[in-house]
Structures are given as structure tokens and as C-alpha cells.
């Protein structure tokens, strides 16, 4: 079915297709339309699901944990402060090895209250053991949410997946959306360690120093195996539905001297900047980083790299810039831009490339080369 839809509606449509048995719902701008649309689906009988309007986000994740462990596919959506409020349970979900899928509509953190796009919320959860993917179009929001369930539930993974989409910039923009007939793309939910009174187990008891670290290694081992599973699922998706995805979306990178790396909608708008730069004779390319956890292998050898961080780790630096530096050895030009929905246009992005100083950091709108 070909139509146009917002990022939020696309996520909700994917959830409908995935048929979760339980959805936990709590409103927060700019995610609210996701849970509202799901409520409509359930009320209209288009989705058979237990819809739990919980009293807070901490309870939303706790409810998802109970439901997932109870044996059903589970979903919730949040943003910013909601994500932070459930932080302890976000850790818990991964540690409990539950294939929960959560849409996080990236939004800045208060005070002051700011409802616009920023990636700090998702990055504040980067150590939790959740897989994290960042989408750049409405179609990708739909596709990635569908794939998230399959990846999460794969027995080699059994870790929760966070699908990130930029607040307002993507959640509220209408773009083309093709919905698909899933067929048997998503097998029925099967959690090997679901609660079973025939085979009673205790979940998450006291675990002492001699044993605990092995469970943490299990999470990491599954996170590493997840790379292969992600590639498999994305390949299968491409075969069935005709749209290919990878760890990054590369645009004109093959012969690029300088690559702009950004995530979310800035990563798409960067392609327009690349076209302008190419017209000026600058051999630029853009690499939109999609998967953040597990962090992919990137081939940046021999290129200059400009990284745009829509986030910051105070007292340290841009999260993406430093991740790239530590993982690839390439020293990027780090630009901090787009915080709290600060407007960054393709002209600005082109300027970042034109004015690059590798090894330095610039806060767009504040300073140069600190």
C-alpha cells in the first residue's frame, strides 16, 4: 500500500504488522502519535493486542519486561525524559535478555524544556546492552521497526532493540511510505526462557561475584553475533521487499576525499550538501551511520572525516566523533550541531566541510575550533 505518512505513523503501522501481544503506552512529545495510533488500531479491531496505558515510563518498560518474559511480542515508544525515566529498566530489559522493541523519538533533555531533535537521549543508554539503529526517512522508520522484531527475537541475539527517529524532523514529517504484506517474515514469538510453570525457573536472582561477570559476557557475545544477524535480516528484507539497508548509508563515498558522517535526518540532508560541494569541485561523500550498537566496522582509510554530533558528552566530546576516532583511528573534525533542534541546513553542512580542521571541535553557533 503506497501512501504518505509521518515517521510516527510509519512506526505505528509497522507495529500493527508485527502484531505484538502487549503494548505499553505513555504519552510524551514528540512520540505521542505512535501510542495514539496504536490505541486506534486496537479500538478499531485492526490490532489484537493488550494495550496497557501505564502511569509512567518506568512502568512502561517494567510492563514490557513482564509481558516479554510472559511470552508475547512487546512494544513501547518513548522519548527524551521518558527514556531517562525508564533508564534502570532499560538496563534490566537487556540483562533479562528480552527481545523488546522500543521506538525512541530523539529529543533533547531539560531543563529548559525542549521538545526538538537531539540524540543525547539515546546515547545516554548506550551502555545498556540494547541494540540501537537510527533511521533517516519515514520508509526506513517502518522497515527498521519490522526488522527490529526479527533481529531482537533471533535466538543468537535475544536483546532488545531501540529504533531511533528524530523528534519533529522525522516523527512529524510526511513522506512516501510503502507498507508491505509481511507474509512469514516475522516468525511467531518464541522466547526460550519464557515463564513456564511446567519448567519453573527463577529469573534474575542474587548472583555473586564468581558468576555475574559470565552473564555480562553473554550479553556482549550476543551483541557481537548480532552483527551477522542484522546483516542476514537486512539481506532477507531486501530480497523479499526490495529495499536494502546496511550499517551505513553511503552517498558518493567511493571516490570521496572527505566524508561527512552524521546520524538521523542530518545524515540525509548531508547528501544535498555533498551534491553542492561536488559542484564546487570538492570530492565529498556522506556516510549516514545507521547502526550505533553494535557499532559497525567503518572503512575510512585515507579520507578526511567530518563528524556531526547531534549530542554531547560533557567533559569529553561528541559521542559519534569519539566513537569513530577510537574505532577507526581516524581523527575527525568534530562538529557539535543540532542540539535541541537547532536548525542545521545543507548549506551549514557544506560549510562544515569547507571549513574543516581535523582534530578540533566546533560548536555550531557558539565557537570555532576549540
Amino acid at each position, binding site marked *: 500500500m503506497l*501512501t*504518505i505518512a509521518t515517521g510516527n505513523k510509519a512506526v505505528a503501522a509497522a507495529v500493527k504488522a508485527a502484531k505484538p501481544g502487549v503494548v505499553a503506552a505513555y504519552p510524551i*512529545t514528540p512520540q505521542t502519535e505512535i501510542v495514539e495510533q496504536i490505541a486506534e488500531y486496537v479500538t478499531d479491531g485492526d490490532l489484537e493486542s493488550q494495550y496497557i496505558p501505564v502511569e509512567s515510563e518506568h512502568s512502561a518498560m517494567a510492563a514490557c519486561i513482564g509481558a516479554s518474559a510472559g511470552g508475547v511480542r512487546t512494544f513501547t515508544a518513548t522519548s527524551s525524559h521518558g527514556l531517562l525515566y525508564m533508564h534502570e529498566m532499560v538496563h534490566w530489559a537487556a540483562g533479562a535478555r528480552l527481545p523488546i522493541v522500543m521506538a525512541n523519538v530523539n529529543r533533547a533533555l531539560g531543563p529548559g524544556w525542549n521538545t526538538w531533535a537531539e540524540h543525547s537521549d539515546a546515547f545516554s543508554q548506550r551502555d545498556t546492552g540494547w541494540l540501537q539503529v537510527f533511521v533517516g526517512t519515514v520508509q526506513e522508520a517502518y522497515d527498521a521497526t519490522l526488522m527490529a522484531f526479527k533481529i531482537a527475537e533471533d535466538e543468537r541475539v535475544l536483546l532488545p532493540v531501540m529504533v531511533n527517529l*528524530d523528534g*519533529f*524532523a522525522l516523527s512529524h*514529517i*510526511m513522506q512516501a511510505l510503502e507498507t508491505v504484506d509481511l507474509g512469514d517474515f516475522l516468525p511467531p514469538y518464541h522466547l526460550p526462557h519464557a515463564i513456564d510453570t511446567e519448567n519453573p525457573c527463577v529469573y534474575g536472582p542474587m548472583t555473586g561475584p564468581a558468576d555475574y561477570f559470565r552473564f555480562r559476557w553473554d550479553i556482549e557475545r550476543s551483541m557481537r553475533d548480532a552483527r551477522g544477524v542484522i546483516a542476514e535480516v537486512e539481506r532477507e528484507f531486501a530480497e523479499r521487499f526490495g529495499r536494502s539497508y546496511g550499517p551505513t548509508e553511503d552517498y558518493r563515498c567511493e571516490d570521496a576525499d572527505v566524508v561527512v558522517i552524521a546520524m538521523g535526518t542530518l545524515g*540525509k540532508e548531508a547528501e*544535498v550538501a555533498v551534491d553542492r560541494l561536488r559542484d564546487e569541485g570538492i570530492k565529498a561523500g556522506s556516510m549516514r551511520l545507521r547502526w550505533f550498537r553494535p557499532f559497525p566496522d567503518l572503512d575510512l582509510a585515507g579520507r578526511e572525516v567530518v563528524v556531526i554530533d547531534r549530542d554531547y558528552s560533557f567533559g569529553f566530546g561528541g559521542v559519534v566523533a569519539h566513537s569513530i576516532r577510537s574505532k577507526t583511528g581516524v581523527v575527525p573534525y568534530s562538529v557539535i550541531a543540532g542540539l535541541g533542534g537547532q536548525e542545521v541546513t545543507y548549506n551549514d553542512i557544506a560549510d562544515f566541510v569547507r571549513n574543516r580542521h581535523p582534530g578540533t571541535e566546533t560548536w555550531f553557533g557558539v565557537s570555532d575550533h576549540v
Partner: protein
Amino acid sequence: MYEIRIHSRGGQGGVTAAKLLALAAFRDGKYATACPFYGAERRGAPVVSFVRIDDEPIKIYSQIHEPDLVIVLDTSIMDVVDVLQGLKSGGTVLLNSAHPLLGCNGTCRHVDLTGIALAENLVVAGSPILNTPVLGALAKMGVVTFPSAEKAIREMFADERNVKAAKAAYEELKA
């Protein structure tokens, strides 16, 4: 790429107008994006929506600073918002008004969408529906085709008065 900026107040359907326009352009076989820009939900506050139409996929998410077309659904906004800001030279303004705009720099069109909506009794919660008739005006201006405008309206609204109002706006907008 054709860039359109729509000014309205929250609750008047300006955001839906953007959706309808993008949907109609989409049904014309174009690429189209529509996006509102506003903070927390607040009825009556000025709202801006952006629509882009192109023959190629649209990869721009930032705001429209130099629109080709500015649509003003509530002219009372013009006291607090500079609706003409950035209008491309040679750009067009379309006002929901029975009267023309004085001192307009560019092509100025006006049509009484409110009057048309009231005549069709197209009123919800005391407010006239402006987003369907405006689509008729936009079809007259060639931004979308009328068949696609009709299609888009019918996809979103069951009430045929919406199509009637669009037709009326199409007729009334002077060439």
C-alpha cells in the same frame, strides 16, 4: 523543487492542509514532504507548515527559508508573523481573504476560503474548514492537478462537501 509555506493558527487545519497538499502532489506522481513546525499543542497559536514538491526524492528536512509560495489561512496572523519573509522574488502569495493584499511584492492571489467553507456549511467545532477548499485554489494555480486534489480529499475525508468546497475555490480563484 517547489517550496510552500503555510501560515495558520493551531486548530484551523493548517497542518492538515500541508498533508493534503503533499498527498495530492504524491498522487500526481511527484515526491512530496509536509512538515509542521510548532511546540506543544496549543489551539490558537500561530503555526507554520512546510511542503516541498519535487520530481526527485526530497532529502531536505530543514525549514523553508525562501518559499516559492506562501499561503496564509488566517490573515490575522499577519499582525504577529512576517508571512512574506524570504519569499523568493517572483514568488506567489495566496491569502484566505475576500480582499487583495496591499503592497505585495510578487504575485498575490486571494480567495475567500472562509466564505466558501461557510457556504458549504463546512464547519467543525465552530471553525470553518479551510484545508480542503485551499486545495482547489492550489489546483487552479497549477501546484497540483484537480483530479489529484479530489483524490487526496476523498482519501482523508468522507464528507463530499469538502470536494464541493474545493471546486468552489477552484472556480472562485481569479486567474
